[in-house]
């Protein structure tokens, strides 16, 4: 059955995939960061907080708003951009060179990275490959878009 995006179930499914691919994520190393994902839909947003610890996604929660003081950084963007990214990953098995997180967010034109503390912001790049591989696990999911 297809998993709806955006939803807690989508991130929980990625969490399960991460656990199933433990060897790969162990090889990539510790990932210790908490960040927000915000998906804009018709002028509103659905917001999720993802807490990573050691090699795992420890917790996912949907929140009314993301407090930048409680996360390292937040990746926000319109649902169409997220959809394009996920569909691209599903088509290629991984994000192609136009759809990886850094490319989409670099100048903030498509996705935007916001933060309160530059040290927290830099954690996106400290754990970049793990975060990219995490989103690339979308290739293993059937995803539907509201």
């Amino acid at each position: 059955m297809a998993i709806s995006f955006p939803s807690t179930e989508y991130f929980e499914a990625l969490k399960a995939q991460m656990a199933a691919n433990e060897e790969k994520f162990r090889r990539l190393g510790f990932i210790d960061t908490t960040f927000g994902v915000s998906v804009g839909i018709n002028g509103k947003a659905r917001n999720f907080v993802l807490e990573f610890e050691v090699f795992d996604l420890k917790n996912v929660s949907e929140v009314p708003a993301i407090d930048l003081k409680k996360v390292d950084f937040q990746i926000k963007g319109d649902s169409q951009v997220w959809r394009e990214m996920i569909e691209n990953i599903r088509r290629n098995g991984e994000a192609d060179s136009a759809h990886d997180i850094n490319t989409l967010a670099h100048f903030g034109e498509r996705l935007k990275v916001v933060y309160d503390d530059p040290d927290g912001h830099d954690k996106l790049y400290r754990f970049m490959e793990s975060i990219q591989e995490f989103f690339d696990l979308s290739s293993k999911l059937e995803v539907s878009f509201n």
Partner: protein
Amino acid sequence: MAYLSTTNFTEDKDFIDKWLYTIRTGEMDLSWMKAATEKISPEEANPRRGLTYRDLNLGTYGYTDIPEKVRNNRSYAPRGAEIPEGVPDAQPWVSRKSELWAFNTESYYEEAVSRQWNATTDIPWGRLDGVELPEVTGKALSQLMTFLTEVEMIATDTPAMWLPRLNPDFIEVRAFIASQAMDEARHAEVFRKRALTTGWGLMQASPINEMALKHLRDADSFSEMSVALHLVAEGNVLTLFRFSEYLSPTDVDKKIFRLVMQDEARHVGYGMQHFKYVLGHFPEKREVLHAHLDEAENISFAGAAATELTEAFIILAGGGLKKENIEQGIRITTQFNLKQMQEHFERLDKCGMPERRERSKLYVMYEMGRAAAENAGIKL
């Protein structure tokens, strides 16, 4: 031979007699078993992570209670060991905690070890088979890789040359600095390999950047080295790696830049935490660090604007040498240059040096560049 033993043991009759006596009789001294040291029972705080340096932060073996000025150990005795008479003075330059400590130092090291990667086997080099970039793009990419190999060779030397100068009581910082030298050696390796797989070989070395990089080696103190290397240089290079990933012409290049940016961001993280620590615990250093930043920012500005680097970026960003390519390349490269400067001042603000903007000539350049970009219709 700069250091000679105080005794010629191979000609010391008492020493040789004792050695032979032990062989002959089996009579043992065993006084070392009575070392007056602490017995502890370290445990993994998180078994998924394993036994970390933080788990060893206990009693006399821990780092929490290291004094600001380490006076009782100038040898290679590990922190917490009994130090008998006769250990030589290793003459460490840095024995003051605030001159090198950083919040979470031990975690940066554990992260570094856990996130090591291999430039030979973790990069899908095979995907370059059959990839032929247009000549200008290939040469621009090779020029970027040539420049980055130069950068990383100096970035390897700089932390490595400070290692023997750090008091061994700061074993966690020493371990982190050693891991950084390894990271930088791997970066030099991966950039050289990529330059030589472009099909164009290496391009040209960069005099301005070598001048800028040489400054990193010539700091008078570890904190000055750290602010110049970890905050200014690596902060700029982290932004540059993200930009390079964005511009990368192949997914192999994207993978390379995603992996190197992880290491670079970790070094910047240590640098930020050390900068906060030294400003908070050694306030007299603030003016010294301002003075060092004056010079570090001056040459960083010159390096970032070096023709051989800027032109390579303009070509990669614009996609060629036609007028419209160059216009686009200049627009994107200018955005990147200004972003580098903006992020530099954001980090200094957060570390507790917000007054830097008032004093810094680089900040004047940033405002000048920003105004020029806006006048040229470049959206920031």
